């Protein structure tokens, strides 16, 4: 009967938390390795389309981003898609200056390898995207990449 009775005198030993730092450090390293710092604060809604035939942009230091989508603050900016460069909204006319400015920051040897990544919301109409592409052509920023998510491969039928 008294076999299972707690011995009043014996204190249950505290659970050792010595391994807690190890666990947390493990998580920490995982996030440190996989983390990519956010380039900008997004002011637009961005849900990218899916695609299967995608390539990875190898060198992030050679990539400039152009964001296009519906502003998140629709009360202030309306619902028409807007262009965002760095941290501010911009117009189509600003694209040329932006690309030239970004190009000037880099050594001349890599100018040919700069890629402009278009991060466009999937609901955007092509009109504004085409305008942006025309501007990029004007400043000889010919290498572009349509940023997409990877499509989960599922059978269609």
């Amino acid at each position, binding site marked *: 009967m008294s076999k299972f009775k707690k011995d009043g005198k014996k204190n249950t030993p505290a659970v050792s*938390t*010595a391994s*807690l*730092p190890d666990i*947390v*450090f493990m*998580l*920490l390293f995982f*996030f*440190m390795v*996989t*983390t*990519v*710092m*956010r380039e900008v604060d997004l002011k637009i809604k961005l849900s990218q*389309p899916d*695609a*299967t*035939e*995608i*390539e*990875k*942009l*190898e060198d*992030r230091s050679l*990539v400039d981003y152009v964001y296009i989508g519906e502003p998140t603050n629709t009360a202030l900016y309306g619902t028409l898609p807007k262009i965002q460069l760095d941290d501010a909204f911009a117009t189509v006319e600003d694209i040329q200056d932006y690309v030239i400015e970004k190009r000037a920051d880099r050594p001349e040897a890599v100018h040919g390898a700069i*890629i402009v*990544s*278009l991060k*466009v*919301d*999937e*609901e*955007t*109409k*092509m*009109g504004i*995207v*085409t305008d942006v*592409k025309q501007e*990029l*052509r*004007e400043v*000889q*920023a*010919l*290498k*572009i*990449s*349509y*940023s*997409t*998510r*990877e499509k989960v491969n599922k059978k*269609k039928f």
Partner: protein
Amino acid sequence: MARSKRELQEINAGSMADIAFLLLVFFLVTTTMDSSWGLSRKLPPPLIEDQEPPPPIKDRNVFVVLANANDQLLVEGELMDIANLREAAIEFISNPQRKEELPEFKEVDVDIFGKMPVSKQVISLQNDNGTSYNLYIQVQNELEAAYNELRNQLSLEKFGTKYSILEEMSKSDDASVSEPAKAKVKAVRQVYPQRISEAEPKETGS
């Protein structure tokens, strides 16, 4: 004297977890899992004034894909679902039965293979200002997939490796791996060159 007798006190490591948690939370917040994947494209250089008009291309060599503002596709004059586009493009590019209405072939000297018949295909893609970006990307993706599939086929047949694997190998740091792979990639690309031409956008009603 008395000091040596004192036992060395253990450092309390309890706050280590707190510090680690602090760092962890920081990285959790700043992390974005989105990686920079995308469809790579090359834009044509800007138009030069009084440039010579390009030589006309025969109708049979052009695969016309039109996308309208209602996200419908018109492929070679017929309404088509996006799911069938890849197959249609593959048939057009490879023209296995050498049909009259599909593109012509020209004997071309290719690096590794020697003389090969190369299709004179061009894919013309035209979209409306009101076409959704999603459809546009899907079309681009399907066309790219068509090329990749044909390139994979050829590469498997000739080298026993997939084209996508060759492409991976050509990016390797080891020159003894990347050099031959690069040559193979180039040869495959010469047989199936990607020619997607995008027309200047037009307003075609909504």
